[in-house]
């Protein structure tokens, strides 16, 4: 369960965006809307504790992310928050499977290769497991990034413009994959986007407030 109240975040000394209120139960999905460059990414980073919020709070299962510090915050983020970046971001020298296992590796928890392999298989990437990440197509890489966010069964999945620069069919596939991932892991799914195609799929939508 993700609860956000009056969360304002920014870059440097300047608050750029605010989200008034949002409450997402397990398996629920919502869109975070706003014009490009308005601060959607910054708000997502603040929810994950990667950017210090200026005001308000974000709580995940009644734990206020703002209250956590240092190693405890890193540990919490690693275990309970899955992040999907706009540019996907796989590490090119590693195989597909190792890129997925980066999640438990970075979080410092035991790695279950079999589970990671079966997750890849469910996403139709069974034959790509040992392929270097830089030899995947964009669509395949996108699925690997989703798998990486799902592997730890997080409480919250945060996705940043996951459909940007995808064609309609691919965007539709990614939307389905994300919704399935949230349903399967029981995570609250929050997608930052300004993509009209996603607005047709996900009815819950919150608009960010742009602070000048």
């Amino acid at each position, binding site marked *: 369960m993700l609860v956000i109240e009056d969360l304002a975040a920014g870059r440097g000394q300047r608050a750029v965006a605010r989200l008034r209120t949002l409450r997402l139960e397990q398996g629920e999905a919502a869109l975070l809307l706003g014009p490009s460059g308005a601060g959607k990414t910054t708000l997502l980073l603040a929810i994950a504790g990667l950017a210090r919020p200026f005001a308000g709070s974000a709580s995940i299962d009644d734990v206020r992310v703002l209250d956590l510090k240092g190693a405890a915050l890193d540990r919490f983020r*690693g275990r309970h928050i899955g992040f999907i970046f706009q540019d996907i971001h796989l*590490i090119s020298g590693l195989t597909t499977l190792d890129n997925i296992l980066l999640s438990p590796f970075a979080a410092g928890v035991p790695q279950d290769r079999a589970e990671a392999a079966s997750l890849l298989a469910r996403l139709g990437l069974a034959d790509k497991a040992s392929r270097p990440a830089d030899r995947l197509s964009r669509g395949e890489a996108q699925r690997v990034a989703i798998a990486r966010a799902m592997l730890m069964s997080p409480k919250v999945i945060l996705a940043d413009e996951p459909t940007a620069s995808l064609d309609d069919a691919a965007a539709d596939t990614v939307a389905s994959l994300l919704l399935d991932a949230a349903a399967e892991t029981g995570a609250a799914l929050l997608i930052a986007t300004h993509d009209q195609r996603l607005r047709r799929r996900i009815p819950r939508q919150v608009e960010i407030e742009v602070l000048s």
Partner: protein
Amino acid sequence: MTLAKLVWSFIRRRPLTWGFNVLTLGTGVAVVLALVLVSQAITNRFERDLAGIDLVIGAKGSPLQIVLAAVFQMDTPTGNIKLSQARAFAQNALVAQAIPVSMGDNVHEARIVGTTPAYAALYGATLAQGRFWTKPMETVVGASVARRLGMRPGQVFIGAHGLSGSADLHRHTPYTVVGVLKPTGAVIDRLVITDVASVWRVHEYIDPNDHDEDAPDPSKPHEREVTALLVKYRSAMGALMLPRQVSAIPDLQAASPAIETARLFSLLGVGADVLRGVGAAILGLAAIGFFIALFGAVSQRRRDLALLRALGAHPSLLLGVVALEGALMGLAGGVLGWLGGRGLSLFAAHASQVAASGPTLIPPPLGLPDFVAIAASLVLALVASIGPAIIAGRTDPARELSGG
């Protein structure tokens, strides 16, 4: 997924940068290590040849030359000393042992030294074949000479006048091999030793057809000579008194092998210092190269490092990734340099063996310098990675990830 796998994937992305830096570090380590090994081999070699000789008494001249000629068999002697004078010092109360050496002839570049069996005992040389001489013109051959010239007991050979070259052969007075020594690693390996009287016999022979100016004049009574006397003191008192007693005699010169060797090393030391400086400069460049490479790696991978933070990594993991990358490359450079240094010292040893009449060098066995070479490379790499590792640890994920 392991830390090593992650670091290796980073290293593989910059093969040229790392290849060059590992090579630079390896070169620096190789030069310094080779220098240490070779100078250790030279020191060992000289120490073995010194064999506890306290003083060399020779004809007036340069003390360094006397030591080089009489102990290390590398230079021409300053002249000869009278047998009566040598005998007087041998019987001196301050002297525990005095071994005469007489040089003047060679066989295929191996010096023929007239001495006593005590000379072989000085180097702990024992017989591999045959026996020691019982009369003049019988010889015992050092191990490398025997190997090089294929000498065995029973063989007869002719000496040539001088310490090298074979223009002037003593055909009238052939030598016989009666024994071959086991290798000692000391100067005696490349000598042919014989009785002092053999040398007198060879040089007192008067060829009826020879009108050489330096041929002995049979009309004058001829006093027998030796080249030098190798002396061991009976007590510390010898060191105080004996050199003074020697220099009181006009034709004689006392030379302390320890002092002369130290003087020689200080002369060689200048060249070694220059090489050491070059090695240190290359190591310094390697350290800077490592710093630049790691710094570049960190800037290039800001987003990779930010990703790890977003996935829950503590900043210490980022620090460790960079330090491990530096350490692995430092270890690679160290091992490369170790192989290079060992290779260079073997090459020096081989080159010293090719020059048959020169002293052979034996590189010291694996030991502290080898360990230090590799450990120092690792430390150098780790020191160079401190700065970049700290920068990596301070990666601000928000800044790197919100740019997109």
